[in-house]
Structure formats: structure tokens, C-alpha cells
């Protein structure tokens, strides 16, 4: 069956003309996986010179009959014990394919190695001993093929010589396994009777299986298709890293699905930031023109400087993945210790990692059992559906929408302990770890607002240092209090002395500072208070985060006092120090302040008094529904 490409053909042996297909051979221990692989290599003339002689010599030295499995069981311990411990790969050719055969162990103890092998395959051969029939590892491997997303499965019923090539026995097994796989949504591409030891059905249909009219194993392998890159799906470019080796800031990653090109507008998830692709960088030639499709490892630059980090996903607006802190997954579990509700884990979705808590476990079963009972925990080598709550928001897709991004792995103590498919995503839901039980307030929001005459709000004052934020904040606080309200001042510098004492002034620390301010302020607002935040908050992105946290309670006020005026005021002496070079990363001189584009209110304190400014704020809070309008209320009471 081996086809030698003639010397005249282009010198790309594994190249463009012949598709490469990766096939894993799975099944119960001792059902003949390694023997089939050995036979396939022999029948296709793929064995290296001297290999057969070496195997015979090794067998003889051990006083054992000739064993095909010695070809693949390269480790001394494997040969000594006659079992395959770890996956191996070997290559051969059929008429139309370059095939990478992955031989996976059948022993339950080495299921992690079977998964390692099978996860790389485009198709699978599931082998069953004609005498023993379908066994627990047969079912388990069948289930795992489904979980791993291997859809092309050929069934091989081996050792037909042991059942006198009985067509009845073949049909019995064929029916049983086909029913089992169909229950999992997998339709076998073929069911083939063979004797791997003697060669029947492997490359030729012998007389002994004359009743069988389907393809041989080699023919079935010829029909399997290589996996195709998912170019037709929506763009997903998970960010592996941001490189600044020279003056370029390159966002690097592999396109998992869809395609992209320079000039396109993209959205960075989960934060939802928008940018345009400025260029697609490469080496040695750069930049590169044209569309880059799924499967490519690329580097892009953007038209603006945004905070992007490893694990973010770049997509096109309108078809972006969902941001979530909670999802449901169907997983397989490989760790010695069973997975329980409440367990803390590390979850990886592409390059993104997040700590997570198991919130619920359902349908935990041993896929090897015929009729397995459901358990509360997922044991080693078992499967189940879990709800997990993530401590960081991630962007992901259900696997039915995107098989590349809709899957995850679970790590325990730095080692991969399981993996599975994302079944559904609860968009926007906040994480609620099971061991944290938020206590609800005894008071209802309307009880508070009836007393304070206002709704809860986050009033966010942003602007350059010395622009008058704190002065305004204090004036507003006094005025709201005088009117019977419940204002609370949150000053950025004051909080840095305590809650945020661990943070410095790097971009990352500034972001975290803002996030914490926003969380505290939002908590107060939910309880009916008006939280007045005075913070330079120079990054537009960080303020966008604050708005997302506080949501409808957020009111942004841009204190737009001109920079010269701010510097001339300089009550804390910061501008002077910065000019003298003794205060690094000070906003106003060294760092850029990004002006708000859609603040609820803009105030220049150099052109009006504090009282006038406070009036304006009060007015804005009335118009936007925070402060109750006294007249309207009076009218309602008449």
C-alpha cells in the first residue's frame, strides 16, 4: 500500500500535496492496539530497516514470542511488564494520506496519557476484542473521545480469529458499541472485523471475513479528514504576551478562529475596550499585508495605547465572546483526590488563568460503567458537569459556538488535573464563592431614600492635581448633609493611607486603586448613600472600569480647571517637586491625563466660585434622578 512519491515531484515530502491526518488508537487494555499499529506499519512497508530483526532479537532475548507491541513500547519498563505506559507517535503512509499514528495506553491507570495522545488526534480507531467484547475502558475511551472533540471514529473488532470469524459475534459487538457511541453523539465512520495478528481486514479483505463488505482499516484511515482551521467562525485571538523589544508594542498570540487584517476595528475582552489594528508585524519581512487566518501565530500593533494583558481575547465588535465570572462545564477528572463542591482550583481558558470555586456538581459518573449511579463528587477518571465561579472575569464561548475557545483545563498544585468543555456562560454574573455568604442589609433601599430624600449614587470627581476636586467634594458633602442626606467622602489620598496602602503609582497599581475605590463607593451607593469620590484617576480606561462597577449609580464630574491654574495653586507642593524631578509618575507634568469624553458634568473652578460649582452639581444630581425634586414631591403629596 505504500506509495513512494517519485523523485520528479516537488521536494516537500510531508508537504502540500498529501494531507496529514493524526489518528489515535484507543481501547481496552490487551485488545490489541499495539499489535494493530505494528501490523499497519508492516503492511504499508513503513518499518525502518533492521527494525523487524531488532524486535525479533529483543523478543528472543526475553524468551517471549514475537511481540509487535515492542515496536512502540520503547521504555524498558513497558517491555518488561508488557504494558504501554505512555502515548507514543509513529508515522506511516497510505495511498492518499500521511498518517501520524498515536498509540495510547489502554490501562485505566494511564488514562492521563491516553487523553494526552487522543487530544492531538483528528480521528480515532477504537479497538475491541471480539472475544471479550465491549469493556469498561472501551466505554470510557468512547466517552473521552466525545469530550475531547474527536468526531471521526472507526471501530475495529479485533481477534476475529478467536471467534472463528463469526459474523454473528461481529454484529453483536457492532450493535452494542454503535448504540453506546450514538448516545454520546458520535457516529462511527466504519465498523471493521480484523485479525491484527494475522492481517485479515487490516490492508486486505481475506476469505475468512468474506461476509464483510466494508472498508479495510487502511481504507478507513484513508477516508479520515484532517482537522481544518476554524476560519469561518468569529475572530478569536487570545493574547499570549505584549512585547516591547523595540519601539513597537506588539500584541502576540495565535488566531484560534476567524481572521483579521490591518485597519480593522477590534474589541479587547473582557474589558470591552475598542481599538484599530494598525499593523500585522512579522519577521524577517514586516509589516505583512492581507488577511491572517485561524491557526496563524501573529503579532499586531494597535492605533492606541491600551492596557492589555495576557489572557485577553481580541475579537470583532458584534461577535465578541461573553464576559463572565460564572460558567458551566462538562469535565473529565484525572486527579487522585475527587473533585468536590467548594473546591478551589485554577482554571485556564487559553492563556487566561483565573482562580475558581466549584459551586455545584451534577451528573458525576464513571463513564466506564454501563449504568452508573450519580455521585456528589467527581472521582479520578470520572466525568461530570460543574458550575464554577471565577475570581477574575474571563471572556469565553460555549464549545458548541467555538470548539477552540470553549474549553478549559483545571490545575491543582501546578499540575493539570482535568479538563472539559464550556457548556454555558452566565454573562455578566458576579462571582459568588460558596464559602462567602453576603449578608443582606436589614433595610430596604426605599426606606433609606425616604429618609435621605435621595437615591444612592457614586459621584466621581476626576481632574488634574490641585484642580479643586477635594474642595468641591467637601462643599458638596456639607450641602447634601445640611439637606438631610447621607453623603460620604472617599478621598483617593486618604484611602491610600489604609485600604490601598499596598499600592504604588505604576499603571497597574493605579488601576487597582481605582477599582477598589469604585467597589467601596458602589457598596455605599447600594446602601443609599452618596459616595463622593475625589481622585485624579487619569486613565480613561480605569474610569470606564469604575463606571462598569457602579453601573447606573455612576455620575462623572470632570473638574476641568486649566493646567496652569492647577500648577499655580499647588497646595501640596507636588508640582514643585515634580518640576524639580523628585516626584516621579506625577500626573499633570510627566503622565498624561486623559480627559473624559462623556462626563455627566464639566466644571472649571477657575471661572466660578465653589458655591456656584456646588449648585451645578446639585442641579445635575436632580436632573439625573439622584436627588428628589422637592417641588415635585410636594405636588405629589397634595
Amino acid at each position, binding site marked *: 500500500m505504500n506509495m513512494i512519491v517519485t523523485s520528479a515531484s516537488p521536494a516537500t515530502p510531508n508537504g502540500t500535496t498529501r494531507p496529514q491526518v493524526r489518528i489515535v488508537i484507543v481501547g481496552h487494555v490487551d485488545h490489541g492496539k499495539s499489535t494493530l499499529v505494528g501490523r499497519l506499519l508492516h503492511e504499508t512497508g513503513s518499518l525502518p530497516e533492521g527494525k523487524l530483526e531488532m524486535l525479533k532479537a529483543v523478543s528472543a532475548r526475553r524468551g517471549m514470542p514475537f511481540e509487535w507491541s515492542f515496536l512502540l513500547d520503547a521504555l524498558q519498563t513497558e517491555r518488561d511488564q508488557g504494558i504501554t505506559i505512555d502515548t507514543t507517535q509513529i508515522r506511516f503512509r497510505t495511498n492518499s494520506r500521511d498518517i501520524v499514528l498515536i498509540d495510547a495506553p489502554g490501562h485505566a491507570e494511564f488514562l492521563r496519557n491516553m487523553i494526552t495522545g487522543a487530544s492531538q488526534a483528528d480521528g480515532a480507531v477504537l479497538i475491541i476484542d471480539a472475544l471479550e467484547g465491549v469493556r469498561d475502558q472501551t466505554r470510557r475511551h468512547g466517552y473521552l473521545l466525545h469530550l475531547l472533540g474527536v468526531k471521526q471514529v472507526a471501530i475495529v473488532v479485533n481477534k476475529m480469529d478467536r471467534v472463528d470469524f463469526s459474523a454473528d459475534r461481529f454484529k453483536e459487538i457492532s450493535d452494542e458499541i454503535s448504540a453506546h457511541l450514538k448516545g454520546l453523539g458520535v457516529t462511527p465512520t466504519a465498523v471493521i472485523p480484523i485479525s491484527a495478528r494475522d492481517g485479515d481486514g487490516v490492508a486486505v479483505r481475506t476469505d475468512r471475513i468474506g461476509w464483510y463488505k466494508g472498508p479495510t482499516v487502511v481504507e478507513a484511515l484513508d477516508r479520515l479528514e484532517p482537522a481544518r482551521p476554524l476560519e469561518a467562525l468569529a475572530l478569536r485571538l487570545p493574547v499570549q504576551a505584549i512585547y516591547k523589544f523595540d519601539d513597537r508594542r506588539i500584541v502576540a498570540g495565535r488566531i484560534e478562529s476567524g481572521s483579521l487584517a490591518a485597519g480593522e476595528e477590534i474589541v479587547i475582552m473582557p474589558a470591552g475596550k475598542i481599538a484599530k489594528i494598525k499593523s500585522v508585524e512579522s519577521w524577517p519581512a514586516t509589516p505583512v499585508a492581507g488577511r491572517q487566518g485561524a*491557526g496563524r501565530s501573529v503579532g499586531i500593533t494597535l492605533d492606541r495605547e491600551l492596557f492589555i494583558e495576557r489572557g485577553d481575547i481580541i475579537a470583532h465588535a458584534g461577535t465578541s465572546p461573553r464576559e463572565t465570572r460564572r460558567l458551566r462545564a462538562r469535565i473529565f477528572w484525572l486527579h487522585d483526590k475527587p473533585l468536590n463542591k467548594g473546591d478551589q482550583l485554577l482554571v485556564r481558558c487559553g492563556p487566561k488563568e483565573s482562580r475558581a470555586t466549584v459551586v455545584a456538581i451534577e451528573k458525576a459518573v464513571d463513564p466506564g460503567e454501563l449504568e452508573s449511579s450519580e455521585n456528589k463528587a467527581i472521582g479520578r477518571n470520572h466525568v461530570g458537569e460543574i458550575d464554577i465561579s471565577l475570581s477574575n472575569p474571563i471572556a469565553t464561548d460555549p464549545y458548541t459556538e467555538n470548539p477552540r475557545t470553549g474549553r478549559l483545563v483545571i490545575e491543582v498544585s501546578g499540575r*493539570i488535573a482535568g479538563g472539559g468543555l464550556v457548556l454555558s456562560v452566565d454573562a455578566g454574573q458576579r462571582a459568588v464563592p460558596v464559602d462567602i455568604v453576603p449578608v443582606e442589609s436589614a433595610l430596604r433601599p426605599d426606606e433609606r431614600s425616604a429618609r435621605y430624600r435621595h437615591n444612592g449614587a457614586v459621584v466621581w470627581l476626576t481632574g488634574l492635581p490641585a484642580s479643586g476636586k477635594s474642595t468641591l467634594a467637601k462643599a458638596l458633602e456639607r450641602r447634601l448633609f445640611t439637606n438631610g442626606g447621607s453623603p460620604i467622602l472617599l478621598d483617593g489620598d486618604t484611602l491610600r493611607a489604609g485600604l490601598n496602602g499596598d499600592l504604588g503609582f505604576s499603571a497597574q497599581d493605579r488601576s487597582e486603586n481605582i477599582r477598589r475605590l469604585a467597589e467601596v463607593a458602589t457598596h455605599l451607593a447600594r446602601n443609599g448613600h452618596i459616595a463622593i469620590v475625589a481622585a485624579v484617576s487619569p486613565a480613561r480606561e480605569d474610569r470606564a472600569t469604575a463606571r462598569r462597577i457602579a453601573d447606573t449609580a455612576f455620575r462623572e464630574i470632570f473638574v476641568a480647571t486649566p493646567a496652569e491654574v492647577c500648577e499655580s495653586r499647588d497646595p501640596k507642593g507636588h508640582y514643585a517637586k515634580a518640576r524639580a524631578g523628585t516626584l516621579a509618575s506625577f500626573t499633570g507634568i510627566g503622565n498624561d491625563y486623559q480627559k473624559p469624553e462623556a462626563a455627566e458634568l464639566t466644571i472649571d473652578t477657575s471661572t466660578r466660585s465653589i458655591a456656584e460649582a456646588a449648585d451645578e452639581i446639585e442641579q445635575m444630581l436632580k436632573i439625573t434622578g439622584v436627588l428628589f425634586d422637592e417641588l415635585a414631591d410636594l405636588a405629589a403629596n397634595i
Partner: protein
Amino acid sequence: MDHLDQLEAQSIYIFREAFARLKKIALLWSLGKDSNVMIWLARKAFFGRMPFPALHVDTGKKFPEMYRFRDHYGKEWELDLRVEPCPPIDAVDPTLPPAARSAARKTEGLKMALAKYGFDGLIAGIRRDEEATRAKERVFSPRGLEGNWDVRDQPPEFWDHFNASPPQGAHLRIHPILHWTEADIWAYTKRENIPIIPLYLAKDGKRYRSLGDQDITNPVASTASSIDEILVELEQTKVPERAGRALDHETEDAFERLRVAGYL
């Protein structure tokens, strides 16, 4: 994307994962065709310059052409080249067969270099199709504190998620071209015009398919005097790539013993 594009994209992905997830890595540069392709891929992954050292653990017994190649391209490719020596043969396990014992000097040299620099990841250019125990390797392969490979307890690795947390004091081997074949290496070398050591090309009816130490590496019979001819030869040959490497053939398990102890 053709076959070589796919191989390249996968290797670049692995390089970037290693660089992102480990603290201090180096690439093992043996000067051979495979590690030259690796350096090329690393430069693609990082847009021109490899951002970590190239480590040459030098047995002192390589071919003169190999040293010339190292000195020339180390500069041209702007590599952060670290050349580290190997201990004398007396310091190596005397129960190993002669050629394997000679090769094991490299394992010892590697251990010394690891101790000296404290790397937590070493990038090595092994391939699955070269040799049966290498076919069982992971892309990110954990090593014990002594640099040893525990083949009985390899962690699961799937969907391009790699185990990248070596225990304190241990290191990982990273194998970015594990999925390539000998023919892939040559086809890519040709496509990308990557320089090679001329010993790979046939002269007087012989060429080297694999380059190691002078005293334990033999040329194979060949008339392939260009990469195109090498590719045609590989189409037809049934002689394994490492046939000229004496250490592979001394005893049934010589190579496995070397690898378990930390050889590449």
C-alpha cells in the same frame, strides 16, 4: 496555510508560552540542523531577536566546521551565547557503554550549567520521529531535581495547555519542534534559507545525517549534495536518522538510560 506554516505556527505558540510562563530560560544550541531551525523560529516568535541565551554545552569534540558555524552565526544572529564546558570522561557513570558514556558528559555539563545559571526552563530541539523514547515526550517535560526524567509519571498535556510549574530547584525541558520530522526540518530550512553546516551535504559518497561528537558520529552513504537531494533521499530511505550515532545502538536500553538521567 500549508504544512510548514502549521508547524511553524505551533512552534511559535510553544516558544511564546515558554517565555511567558517561565522565569529564566535558555535554548540549547547544538549547532545542528534542528537547533538552527529552532533559533529561526524563536526569532520569528519574538520579531527578530531571541530574548534569552543560547547555551552551547561544549564537549570540546565537535567538528571544526561546527565551531566555525557557532562563532560566525552567534554574532550574525545577535545571540546571547553562553558556551559551557563538560567534565572529563572520568567523572561519568562507568557502567554505561563507551559511546553512551562519552555522550553522557553532555548531561553532566548540562547539570553544571543549570546550577551555574539557575534556569527553570531549557529549550531543546528533539523530535518525536528521531527515536522511540523521544516519541513519548511531552512538549513541556518536567525534570526532577537531579535533571532526571520520570517517564512513568508524566503529567497530562492537552489542547496546548502545558504544565509549566516546575518544583523549586527543578527545571522543565521545552520541546518546540517535537512534532516536526527530519524531512520537515529540511524543507523548512530550504524555504526559509536557513544556513547549515556543510557536513550535512554529501562529499565523496558520504554525508552526516545527524551531527554529534566527532568520535562517536559516523557519516552515512549518500550522494545528496543539496537540500533538494536530501529530501528526495529521505523519501526513499529506510535507514533511521540516528544510524550514525554510535550511542543509540550499543545496548537495547542505552539511549533510554541516558535520557532518564537527563540527556536530551
